C-alpha cells in the first residue's frame, strides 16, 4: 500500500475509535441535543414575547432556529475539545506518536467523527424544533445550501477544538475555549437583531463571526436574500478552520514533555 492509502486507512481507524466512544456513551449525544433544545424552549417560550419587534418573521422560533443550529455546533466543538484533551492527558496520544501512524491521520479521526456527531445532533435538534412549530420555507436547494453552511461551520469549530484540546494541560485549561464557543453566539444576531442592541454590544454583535453564519442560515431557511453575509460566513469559517488546522499540525508534532 502507498503512504496515502495507509493514511486513509489510519484515519478511518481513528474515526471508528471516536465513534465507538460515542456509541458506548450515547449520553454525550443526548446532552448535545438536549442543551440546544433547552435553549430553544427558553427563548421561544420565555422570550417569545419579543416576536412583535422582529418584523418579517412570522414566528419567533423561525427567527431563533439558525442561532440554535450554530449553538449546537458550538456545544459539539466543546465536547470535541474535551475528548482530545482527555486523550492527550491520559497519554494515549503519546502511544500513537510512538507508532508508525501519520499525525494527520490522528487529527483526521477526531475531525471526521466530531463532524458526524455534530451533524447528527443538529439534525435531531431541527427535528425537535419542527415538532415545536419551526416552519422553514426553504426548498430542497436552499436546505442543501444551509446544510453546507452548517458543515463548514462545524468544520471550522472542530479544527479549532482539536488544537485547544491538545494545548490544554488539564481539562480546566479548556474553560476559555468552551466559554467562547458556547457564549459568543448569545452576543450575535441569534436572538435579537444587532440593530436593536446598544452601543459597543451592537458593534460587537454585528461584527463577530457567528453573526454572518446565523444570518446566512436564516436567509436560506426563511427564503429571504442573504446577500453578502454568505461570503463573510464562508471567509470566517475557512479562516478559522485553516488557523486551527495549522496550529494542530504544530502541536501534534511538538515535544511531548515541556
Amino acid at each position, binding site marked *: *500500500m502507498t503512504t496515502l492509502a495507509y493514511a486513509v486507512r489510519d484515519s478511518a481507524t481513528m474515526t471508528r475509535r471516536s465513534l465507538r466512544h460515542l456509541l458506548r456513551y450515547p449520553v454525550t449525544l443526548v446532552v448535545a441535543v438536549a442543551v440546544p433544545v433547552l435553549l430553544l424552549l427558553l427563548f421561544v417560550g420565555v422570550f417569545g414575547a419579543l416576536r412583535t419587534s422582529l418584523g418579517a418573521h412570522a414566528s419567533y422560533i423561525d427567527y431563533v432556529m439558525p442561532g440554535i443550529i450554530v449553538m449546537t455546533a458550538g456545544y459539539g466543538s466543546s465536547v470535541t475539545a474535551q475528548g482530545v484533551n482527555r486523550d492527550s492527558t*491520559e497519554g*494515549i496520544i*503519546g502511544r500513537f506518536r*510512538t507508532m*508508525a501512524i501519520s499525525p494527520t491521520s490522528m487529527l483526521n479521526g477526531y475531525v471526521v467523527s466530531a463532524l458526524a456527531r455534530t451533524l447528527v445532533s443538529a439534525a435531531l435538534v431541527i427535528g425537535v424544533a419542527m415538532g415545536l412549530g419551526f416552519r422553514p420555507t426553504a426548498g430542497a436547494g436552499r436546505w442543501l445550501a444551509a446544510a453546507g453552511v452548517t458543515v463548514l461551520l462545524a468544520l471550522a469549530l472542530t479544527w479549532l477544538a482539536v488544537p485547544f484540546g491538545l494545548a490544554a494541560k488539564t481539562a480546566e485549561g479548556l474553560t476559555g475555549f468552551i466559554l467562547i464557543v458556547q457564549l459568543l453566539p448569545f452576543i450575535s444576531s441569534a436572538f435579537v437583531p444587532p440593530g436593536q442592541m446598544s452601543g459597543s454590544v451592537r458593534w460587537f454583535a454585528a461584527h463577530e463571526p457567528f453573526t454572518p453564519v446565523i444570518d446566512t442560515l436564516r436567509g436560506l431557511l426563511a427564503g429571504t436574500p442573504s446577500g453578502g453575509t454568505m461570503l463573510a460566513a464562508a471567509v470566517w469559517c475557512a479562516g478559522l478552520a485553516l488557523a486551527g488546522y495549522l496550529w494542530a499540525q504544530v502541536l501534534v508534532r511538538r*515535544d511531548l514533555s515541556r
Partner: protein
Amino acid sequence: MTSAITATGLRKSFGDKVVLDGIDLEVRAGTTFSLLGPNGAGKTTTVQIMSTLVRADGGEVRVAGHDVARDPAAVRAAIGVTGQFSAVDNLLTGEENLLLMADLHHLGRAEGRRRTAALLGQFDLAGAAAKTAMTYSGGMKRRLDLAMTLIGDPRIIFLDEPTSGLDPRSRRMMWQIIRDLVAGGVTIFLTTQQLDEADQLANRVAVLDHGQVVAADSPEELERSIPGANVRLHFAGTTGLDAAERALGGAFRHDDTLTLEVPSDGGAIAVRALLNRLGDTADEVDEVSVHTPDLDDVFFALTGHPTAEPAPEMENTR
C-alpha cells in the same frame, strides 16, 4: 552481536534545567538493558528521546540502525513503548484496545483477532476482555498496556518503570513476561528505581544520576562495587553487645542503637553459621535482621550522595 540502541553524547535541557548531560549508552540486540536511577535522574527523558517523542538538544541516537532525529518513522516501525502511566483507551474494552492497535499496525482482520485473543490469554486478561479498561486495576491496565505494545511484534521494547506502583504479585508476573520476551529474541530497554528489578532482569545496568551515567556494568560487577548485605544483631544491653563483638570480630558496632552489623550474604546458611559462632551469646540477641543493598546504597557508593536529594520531577508530564 549487533547493537540495537546506541546513544552518544546525548544532551537535553528543559529551560535552564539540564536533564541529560552527555550520556553514552549501548544496548546489544537480544539483551535486557536497565537504566537505573531515582526520580528526576533523566530516565523518562532518555526513553522519550529514544522513542521519538522528544528531540535531543545534542548527540546522536540510533535505534534499530536508524537515527531517531533523521528517520523517526523507521524507528517507530521497529519499537514498542510502554510508559510509566498506562496509555490505554479507558473508554474501550480490553479487547477493543488490542484490536485498535492491530488495525493501526495494518494487520488483517483475522490476524488481528488471532493475536488479540492470544495476548488476552497470555496476559491473564481473557476474563476481563469485554470490560472497559476504566474498570481495570492498576496491574491489569499495565498488562493491557504491554499487550498493546506487543501486538505489532516489536523487536525493541522500551519499558519505563513497568512495575512502579504494582503489587508484588503483578510485579512478578510482569518480570516473567519480560523474561519470556527476551527469550524470544526481543531487546528490552528498561528503566527502574529498584535495584532488585535491574538485578533480576538486566544483562547490563547503567546508573543515571543528575543526567550523567555514573556507572555501566553487569549487575554482578555493579554489586561488587557496593557494600554487600549485612546481618544486624540487636541487643538488650551492652553486656551482650560486648560479648558478641568479641565472639565475632570484624563487626561494626553502633552503641547508640545497641546493634552489631556483620557483613554477610544474608542467606539462611550464613545466618545460622553466624549464630553458631555466637554460641551462648546468641541468647542475648533481641532481634536479627538482614539488610540487602538497595538503590540508596548503590548511589551512596557510586556518587557519595544519597538519592533522597530533592530533584524536581520534570519528566512525567504527558
